[in-house]
């Protein structure tokens, strides 16, 4: 029976990229619908009326929202090349760290990203503490789950790309090889991995996008 799989995404969303990778790693054919979030399509609003966000996966007409929920759905529906560990304890750890990445890590990186130059050192403290925890998780492993790419690598994938963009825009070094040998190594392996490397959004476009974003934040925060 022919399956219909559609993915609503934007060109730059790291959350949507998780699903692109998951589908490609499992060899699932799908149709891509690129959204302009300043002008959302009626379809997107119909499939995700509550949040109006990407990604949304639509499988045979049924929508699934929230990227980590979608990852689990993809893994449970297409069971080959599993992304999540089988063992319940390891699975729980994966879910825990994915939540950590989306919650604590992302918040601290965002805080750093919108900090003025004079405030950067202070803003970096929390981000560095969180990165130390991630570093610990990668000790003795090539990827988060071992030798092959899985759920947690996809969950942290946005960071592999974004860190170098942040470092370039802000002229600082966040993940240096001495302080974070395992994290640095993971970034190198992940960025260049088969399937993963074909999906990155254009770097020059990303630099411009985030540069503009940072400038907007700084301008808005300037006391009048």
């Amino acid at each position, binding site marked *: 029976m022919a399956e219909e799989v559609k993915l609503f995404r934007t060109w730059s969303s790291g959350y949507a990229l998780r699903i692109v990778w998951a589908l490609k790693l499992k060899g699932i054919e799908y149709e891509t619908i690129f959204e302009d979030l300043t002008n959302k399509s009626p379809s997107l609003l119909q499939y995700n009326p*509550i949040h109006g966000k990407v990604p949304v996966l639509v*499988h045979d007409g049924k929508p699934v929202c*929230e990227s980590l*929920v979608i990852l*689990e759905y993809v893994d449970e*529906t297409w069971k080959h090349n599993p992304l999540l560990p089988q063992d319940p*304890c390891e699975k*729980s750890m994966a*879910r*825990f760290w994915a939540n950590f990445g989306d919650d604590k890590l992302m918040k601290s990186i965002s805080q750093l990203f919108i900090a003025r130059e004079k405030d950067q050192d202070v803003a970096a403290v929390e981000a560095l503490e969180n990165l130390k925890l991630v570093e610990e998780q990668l000790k003795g492993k090539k990827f988060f789950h071992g030798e092959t790419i899985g759920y947690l690598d996809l969950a942290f994938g946005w960071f592999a790309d974004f860190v170098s963009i942040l470092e370039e825009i802000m002229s600082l070094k966040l993940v240096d090889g001495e302080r974070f040998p395992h994290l640095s190594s993971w970034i190198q392996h992940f960025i260049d991995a088969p399937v993963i490397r074909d999906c990155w959004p254009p770097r020059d476009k990303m630099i411009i996008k985030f540069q503009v974003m940072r400038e907007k934040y700084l301008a808005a925060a300037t006391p009048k």
Partner: protein
Amino acid sequence: MGEEDRVILHGMWASTYVKRVELALKIKGIPFEYVEEDLSNKSALLLKYNPVQKKVPVLVHNGKPICESLVILEYIDETWPSHGLQLLPKDPYERARVRFWAAYIQQLLESMAKLFNPDHKEAQEKALEEMYEKQRILEEGMREFFPEESPNVHPEKLGILDIMIVSTLGAFRAQEEVLGVKTLDPEKNPLLFSWVEALIQLPVVKEIIPPFEKLVSLLQFIKQNGIRF
């Protein structure tokens, strides 16, 4: 599971997050030990088991800690699949729907928590509006799940959404006592209201609901002192 199954729950008597796990364990009939934590003076054991967040609940199963209430609920369901009933449906799409709404109920809880910060009146009103809006969306969303007016609450059929709903909204009377406003209006949210009322009648839920007066005192204390959990 093996004969040497040891399950310990580190919790705090009023924590919504802990209640979720307590309820899941009881629904599934899993024997466990309970350790009450003093959150102003966290035990060395808690800090060892949850060094990242230093929070409750932590479930320790044969020495291995699991943290974060929703992660723990899924762990319980996967580890003891044939104990009692399944907390999550089997079908991947239905599972995705439950996970989506469980996360949404969590967002609702976060809105409700804002009401207990001792902010000025304007901030309170804004927080209230935010909460009512989320409840409205939840009410509509849950209508899709249940074709009848009120969900069929049966002790043999409780799942993650029942657990999330009763842990988040079950103490609404105590909250209303402290805040002086309705936090669960039967007219605005008839489905949620009747669902919660049916859930809090169940013996398994009655076992875990904190005593009313004690909870009111705590909520008053939190509101006056702006404690954030």
